[in-house]
């Protein structure tokens, strides 16, 4: 009887909660009274539906709930991951410091307020914006340091500073939140934030030259499209250049792993698959050296053609999955491509 009473008591109470939650998430969208602190991205949707639609499928929106991130952070038992994956508004905590973690609405990941929130108001790069949320122009929003609060933890902004883009004032937004025409001729910005999960963007990054000669082939690869290293980031992003040597009948006679472009994470010490990225660097930084390709830098490989080789497939696979697995395994596994965990960003066959 006592148990039944408890159940009835709790169930009745939950009705209140459900009513409240339904109101917030389905229609009402009431804002918290104290500034913008409690505003969810769903509430921004009421006026900015198109931007919301772009954002909700972006990797900013999925930053906290992403299964790979949850796995790597031991479901956020490693609390330091929360700082960037569900940050408080960076304009509040300071664009020259790492962000602080948010307590509520973490499922929204890098939400609208993470970039636009600033105390009780909304920061925007538009000088003419007006609306219920009281937007005001704030140049800090376009400052690369604002992105750097999270993204420079893996050196992306520092890499950008070494490029001519930095001197020319072409910042993160130019490529990653590009201009977009909206309904009614309005100008806007693309909040889907095309980057490392966008195959079309990835294909623009490398310039690959293949120069066959009598006994082999020369490969010249240059980063011409990324305003930072290729790939940027530590650990998670990697690109593999592989060659499949084939005989006259098209049968594979040798697979050559030519290079891996990757910056291993600071606590990595072991090679996972024998690819040639491992070079112990001295002293405390005893970890595999980075093989990322800086902007404008060219890397050349001279490869000797094996006996009987009549052709070669040159493939560059870009991977977003953490900890690299063998490129050949990825090629054989369609799921990686379907899940957008891997992309073939270059593929060409040469016959000898």
């Amino acid at each position, binding site marked *: 009887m006592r*148990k039944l009473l408890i159940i009835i008591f709790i*169930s009745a109470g939950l009705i209140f909660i459900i009513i409240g*939650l339904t109101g*917030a*998430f389905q229609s009402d969208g*009431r804002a918290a009274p104290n500034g913008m602190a409690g505003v969810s991205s769903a509430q921004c949707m009421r006026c900015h539906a198109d931007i919301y639609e772009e954002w909700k499928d972006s990797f900013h929106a999925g930053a906290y709930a992403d299964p790979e991130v949850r796995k790597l952070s031991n479901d956020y038992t490693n*609390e330091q991951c929360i700082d960037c994956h569900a940050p408080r508004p960076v304009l509040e905590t300071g664009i020259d410091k*790492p962000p602080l973690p948010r307590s509520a609405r973490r499922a929204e990941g890098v939400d609208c307020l993470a970039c636009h929130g600033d105390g009780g108001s909304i920061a925007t790069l538009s000088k003419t914006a007006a609306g219920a949320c009281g937007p005001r122009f704030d140049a800090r929003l376009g400052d690369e340091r604002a992105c750097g609060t999270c993204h420079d933890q893996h050196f992306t902004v520092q890499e950008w500073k070494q490029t001519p883009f930095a001197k020319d004032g072409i910042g993160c937004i130019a490529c990653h939140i590009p201009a977009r025409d909206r309904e009614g001729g309005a100008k806007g910005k693309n909040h889907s934030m095309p980057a490392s999960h966008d195959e079309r963007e990835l294909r623009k990054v490398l310039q690959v030259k293949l120069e066959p000669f009598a006994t082999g082939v020369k490969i010249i690869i240059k980063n011409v499209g990324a305003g930072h290293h290729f790939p940027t980031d530590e650990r998670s992003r990697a690109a593999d250049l592989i060659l499949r040597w084939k005989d006259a009948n098209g049968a594979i006679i040798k697979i050559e792993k030519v290079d891996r472009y990757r910056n291993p994470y600071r*606590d990595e010490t072991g090679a996972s698959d024998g690819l040639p990225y491992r070079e112990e660097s001295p002293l405390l930084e005893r970890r595999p050296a980075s093989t990322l390709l800086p902007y404008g830098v060219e890397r050349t490989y001279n490869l000797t053609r094996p006996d009987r080789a009549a052709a070669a497939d040159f493939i560059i696979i870009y991977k977003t999955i953490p900890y690299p697995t063998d490129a050949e395994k990825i090629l054989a596994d369609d799921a990686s491509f379907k899940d957008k965990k891997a992309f073939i960003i270059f593929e060409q066959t040469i016959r000898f």
Partner: protein
Amino acid sequence: MRPRFAVLFAMMPTAAVPVFVGGCGSRAAPAIVYGNAVAEYIQSLERRRGEILGETSVRGTQYTQSRDWIESALLVKSGTVRTAARQSLVGMGRVGIEDIIQYIDTEEIGTSARAGAAGLLALYKHSFGFTLPAAVKAAADLATRAKEPAVRAAAAAAVGELGERSAIPELTLRLRYETSTEVCAALAVALCRLGALAGVGGLRELIHRGELEPCIVSIKFILANEGIAIAEDAEMEQFDAALAVAQRRWFETGRVSSEPLVNDPSLEIAMARVVARIGGADLRAVDDARFILSMSGAAGVPALIVALHDASVYMRVRAMEVLGILGPVARAATPVLLTMTGDPEHPAEVLVALGRIGAPEARPVLYQFADDPRIEVRVAAARGLAARPEVSMAPRLREFLTRSLPDGAAPSPDAALLCIQALIMIPETDAFAVADSLLQMEPFAAHADPAVLERALDAALARCGIADESASKPADTNEKWKRLRAATAVHHKK
């Protein structure tokens, strides 16, 4: 450093000169002319030189005029001579130690010589009864940055012997990233000798890796110091369990044996430096500092309390965060934190910290803020309450599930889930009643913090007696909902 034989002869004790000059005038040529006999003669001279050096070691500083001569002896072939030379330098005091530090940096010497010299840095303390800052710094630098594992291990042991607690943070961090078992063992033992909590954790880690042997003596020593009895033929698990007891004590008290760590000025200064790093711009440094502090237990609390008064909001928030990670051991911070609850610059963080520390006097404040109209504050209060739930909190937690929200407040599935999670974790509550509450949250799961949801589901399944059927491939969230629904349905039918 290069051999300076000219100086060497000039500085040599008179008795040794005739013999030595005769033999060493042209060391390579006689070997050709006289063959093995000469080689043996030279070796005998080197042994003699070793004896002389040994004598200088015993006589100490009165032989400082022989310094150059001894320095040159550091680089000869004979290991006996080199060892004697190193020891004699230690006997010379400050200048000798400086020579040893320079010698360690010499490119020509091998790993074993470098490791031997690193070990000698601690010998000075045995000879003179006090430590030299230069020796401490050199040993700590080598323990954390030397390329060769053997040198890092020897230097770590030296730091432990020197008893220099200012090195604790650096050694703790090195232990985090160290990959060599030999060095891990040396670091863990050194940290234990310094009374640092991280050392006990390091030793336990070695036990878990099946590497008990290198540190068995140290483990026995620690356990004896702590008054923890261990059988002569104890198994690995017993050592681990005994160390776990010591680890808890060290975490809570920040003390080793009867010596209070937190009153050690060198440690306090070192901890204050670490705390200063949690407010920095480099997230790696912030993370490393958080790690060191979380590994230091009570030892880091005084510096963190000071940081709560920092002018920078950022620093204050980080300090709250680490105090929360430390939990009940940071209870001394509760009164300060309670005065900060009204501060609009960190309304949420202070509540989470208070909840995680778990002092009963903070609970009324958490209850009060659990009704706050601001969603961030309400969720933070719920996080605080869910951190250390106990039976006396159950009625209030139920109340939060049933009460109306403050006027204009945005509802949060996270706050509700955290309250449910807290109720589940209280053993005295009715597991199935709470599971029913959780099931009613299912329609809102998509909007909830997935990590909180997962933990609530796992706790509910465990409380309802539903074990994960395949440990190798844990059930996904949908499967967990399904199992919980099935279990509660069966229970209600009964």
